């Protein structure tokens, strides 16, 4: 992927988004990430994927799984096995079940918005932090999106960003790579923004 092209795409995207969400908002990274994933997979229900996290328009999934299911969830991926080694060795199903409630939608159901929201923790393999902060972080990001939704044209703008990404011809990029690119470009953008502010001051 061409770094300059990606930076310019991101600058344009942020320029569009800043009308709806303040730059530095918790929701920006997960929103951009899930938008691009949505565009790559040519899905039409981006809003459903994001808002569906909170809207209980339909019945919820069953979280009370058999013990075997829970154990496999933690034992099969090596990084999860390592993170919850202590609980697994002690057979502490109670703690595992609690962590499962937060980690299953992020890791098991691979919800793009949640993967974006916890991208740093996923990259670091800090699954314990995801489990601890799941509710508060999700609530904050969704309330920011809810406020942005009140401005007309929000979803149309988000979909436009997804389509703009596709026009760059990078549809074959894999998800962890995309997260890394996006993160690096956003950080670069933030630093640039900070420098500009300082110069203005």
């Amino acid at each position, binding site marked *: 992927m061409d770094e300059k092209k990606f930076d310019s795409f991101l600058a344009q995207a942020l320029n569009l988004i800043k009308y709806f969400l303040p730059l530095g908002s918790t929701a920006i990274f997960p929103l951009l990430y899930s938008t691009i994933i949505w565009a790559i997979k040519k899905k039409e*229900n981006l*809003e*459903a994927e994001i808002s569906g996290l909170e809207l209980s328009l339909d019945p*919820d999934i*069953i979280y*009370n799984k058999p013990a*075997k299911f829970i154990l496999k969830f933690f034992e099969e991926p090596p990084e999860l096995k390592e993170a919850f080694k202590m609980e697994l060795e002690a057979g502490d199903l109670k703690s595992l079940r609690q962590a499962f409630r937060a980690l299953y939608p992020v890791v098991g159901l691979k919800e793009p918005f949640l993967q974006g929201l916890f991208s740093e923790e996923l990259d670091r393999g800090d699954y314990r932090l995801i489990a601890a902060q799941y509710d508060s972080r999700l609530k904050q990001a969704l309330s920011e999106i809810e406020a942005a939704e009140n401005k007309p044209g929000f979803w149309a703008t988000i979909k436009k960003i997804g389509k703009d990404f596709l026009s760059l011809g990078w549809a074959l990029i894999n998800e962890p790579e995309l997260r890394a690119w996006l993160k690096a470009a956003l950080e670069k953008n933030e630093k640039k923004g900070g420098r500009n502010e300082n110069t203005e001051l």
Partner: protein
Amino acid sequence: MKTPSFNHYNGLRSKGLRPGRLAASTFYLKLAVIFCLIVFLVNCASTLSRAKVDYAQAQTLQRTLRVREATAIYKKVQQEMSALVKQQPTAQAYLLKGLSEVNLELWEEAAASFQQATWLGNEGTESWAKELSLYGLALSFEKLGWPEVSARLFDILVKKGKYQPVVRNSVGKLVEKKLGEIDNLARSEKRVPEERNKILDEVKKMVLQTLEKDPACGYCHYLLSQVLAHREDFSQSLEEAIMARELGLPTEEILRDNDNQIIFCYKELIVELPADQIVSFKERYNKWIKKWEWPDETTPDWKKS
């Protein structure tokens, strides 16, 4: 002296309106009123017809997992019908308003709309109104931390309810709760297999009874698959999960969870089945995953990166 003759048209004459012209203008006035009335009625009828088409479209979108778009249309229909019932309250408009409100989870408003529809002559909606009020109440108890009371109300709705969305959601709530009780049994170290099996039998029976009333309910097959996995009946659990996928599931999240269930059962069966059955089992399983375009036995399409 010429007595001024009284003519009630005098005043009008002075304004230049003669009797002939007045009759004509009255006629045109009546015509205009009738025309406006026809336009109004046609407009009400077309608003209702358009709203019906919109509602049907929203349902199609919801079935194809485009929930958000469907929600936007339900909101539009609800707003249009709210305006329409103020101008011309009809049973049909209230019915459509109530149905949209059900999909927006506005339980109290939906119950009130169905009640209005009943008063205006729609007989079927009275029981819906009652069921929705009860469901809203059960959700309130659940939120306020009264799980026993809410479970009792959900149970009544499952046993006696006739309105499918309410019954389906209530079954889901009860299944989750009962499966949680099994987990609590294990935690309290009672580990009484009889007690566990008794709960699982109850839950299975409840889901099967719901399925008898609505055999094409994909979500109910999903629930049954979850219950059967707790009984370690992975073969039947897999069959039910496949059926759920084929019949359609209400959200992307449930679809993905159901796919994980399919994979979980597959992995268990590979270990559990006698060697002579594995080949034919794999053949059958691979036909399904080919149909769903999964790259391999344990990777659903949405896990491809």
